């Protein structure tokens, strides 16, 4: 960052290269709190301004902490492998807004099309099962015995 001396103009950042990641909270958070993973260089003021300017989200308060990434795990060469450290920001929305983390990976019920892959696979599995089953007239008795 450029040097600041008394009387200098406010530091302005055009085209910030900071990417925010919205994460699902590990612990239960109040309904107005949104959890982000932010780059280490960002501050609370930076997060507030970022959200307000780029996303026009009214921000009340921001609290940050740095999460230490473990250095305990070892790879196949028995060398320690470091997981990267990251900064977490807890943003409380202003104006009594509420945020619920949505379920993005809901399984969609796929309709089987006529010539679709799923249809063919299902048919194939059913054919295989049919081959495995014995004569229905023997009512479950194995065919190993004669007669």
């Amino acid at each position: 960052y450029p040097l600041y001396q008394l009387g200098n103009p406010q530091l302005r950042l055009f085209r910030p290269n900071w990417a925010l990641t919205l994460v699902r909270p590990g612990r239960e958070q109040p309904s107005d709190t949104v959890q982000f993973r932010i780059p280490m260089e960002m501050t609370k003021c930076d997060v507030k301004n970022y959200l307000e300017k780029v996303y026009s989200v009214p921000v009340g308060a921001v609290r940050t902490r740095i999460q230490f990434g473990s250095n305990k795990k070892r790879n196949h060469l028995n060398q320690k492998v470091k997981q990267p450290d990251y900064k977490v920001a807890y943003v409380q929305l202003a104006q009594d807004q509420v945020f619920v983390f949505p379920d993005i990976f809901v399984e969609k019920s796929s309709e089987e099309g006529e010539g679709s892959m799923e249809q063919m696979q299902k048919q194939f599995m059913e054919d295989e099962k049919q081959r495995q089953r014995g004569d229905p007239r023997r009512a479950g008795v194995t065919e190993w015995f004669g007669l």
Partner: protein
Amino acid sequence: MAATSAGRVLALCKQFHNVVRISSTIPSQNTGICLTKSSLARPNLLAGAACHICPVVQCRPLHTTISRMGLEEFFDLPDNWGESTVKSGAPWTVTLLRSKSNEELHKLWYLLLKEKNMLLTIEQEAKRQRVSMPSPERLKKIERSMQRLDKVVEERETALRLLQTGQEYARPADWRRNLFGKVVWHRFREYAIPWYMNATYKRRRFYTPSFVKPHIRLRMEKNLRTRARQADLEKKQLAKLKEKFPQMKASS
């Protein structure tokens, strides 16, 4: 750009520049500490324009309302939740970006940034739910587009600086000899006081003391040795191949 598909098209489509002209009439307001008002200017010229150029673009009905709920833009469009693949166009190329004006590049940067945030959110949530992320190649495309945008902006800045002041580099730097006998490109730091008042700076030595000479000689010897060994190895390999394949043309 979760809510507006217009922004989605903008961020990822390759050939749409013939179709889209981003309106540059929206003034950017520089308030607060860090950021300028982003490109919430919706490219209203996209509405009704047929996406006939890039066949990979998802032709959805385009609307141009500004999204109210800002945090929705951290997630994909709700139609895409649960899909295994999401279609996306090619990344921006340098030639394409050079044809854009500065205002358009500025707005595109913010669109790409928002898209990147959205993709990172999805990636993290996929890791959390232990599910594979749909179309992870989008991240690479966005990353490359942003790098190229940076490159174009830097080019323009250097050109302007050269014309106005004659300086090649924004940050002052110079060739300096360091302690190890190597001549390096030393980039200057910004200080509040001049160098002759800076005690720590004066303790730094930008020359090579005489006791380093043996080390330099050894280093030179090592370099020459490795280069000679490399050349010998290549010659031997060529000779071996030549023995096996006599008609072989001498290749590198």
